[in-house]
């Protein structure tokens, strides 16, 4: 029987897999493929790291003084 999951189709299943939205049979096939495929193992690691890297690179703290000016602005509009 021809394998249903190859690298290309496996990539398309990753999001649903990670969110637990994949049917059981496909989940098992995907896991078996990734475990036996060094390229997919590497791909999955980088796919999972991507959100974290971008999240950490785009942290922005509220600038000093912005709370005061925001509250003042809102008070002026409510007055």
């Amino acid at each position, binding site marked *: 029987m021809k394998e249903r999951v190859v690298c*290309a189709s496996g990539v398309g299943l990753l999001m*649903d897999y990670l969110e637990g939205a994949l049917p059981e049979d496909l989940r098992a096939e995907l896991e078996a493929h990734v475990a036996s495929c060094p*390229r997919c193992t590497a*791909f999955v690691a980088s796919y999972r790291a991507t959100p974290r*890297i971008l999240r950490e690179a*785009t942290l922005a*703290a509220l600038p000093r003084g912005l*709370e005061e000016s925001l509250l003042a602005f809102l008070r002026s*509009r409510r007055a």
Partner: protein
Amino acid sequence: MAVPGVQTSDEALAARAAAGDEPAFEMLVKRYQARVYRLACRLTGNEADAPDALQETFLQVYRKLASFRGEARFSTWLFRIATNAALMQRRARARRPGESLEAFLPRFDADGLHAATPSELQVAGRADELIDRKLLAEKARAGIERLPELYREAFVLRDLEEMETAEVAEVLGLEPATVRQRVHRARLMLRGYLGDLVGVTP
């Protein structure tokens, strides 16, 4: 009456604010301003636009409080307003559309196998170790800017603000499956983009 150590719920504060309790409104502002600011930075791609989006968000919240019925969580309702305010701010500033990230999608051979080697494939996941932090911050913002708008808003809410997919779906008025599909496309493009930053073609 407030119980020490127990935070008044957003919904209770919203009800008081809607009835004209100004300190309750300001408590909500203080509770959410930092998250709304960060979301605005990420959606507008621009720290200069974020303060206006922040002001507009809470002005809208104030004006619409009376219509907040508590069908959604207050935070979901607030983030819907904040997302729209940031997108309006973005559109107000004429922008050249960024070059598409399609070129960074993964490539496969005729048998559907990854065209790149394992070491090439894993390197995108180490971009933060391989690039200077300041440069990465600049490039990250530029990459997110280049996403198609539909993917950008889903990706920012789901992956950068770390909201549950179901809540993102509620904020954006989409089915969860659609959110997952858009976030997935964004991840694929940005993964390839990060790889490109560290010198690996997809």
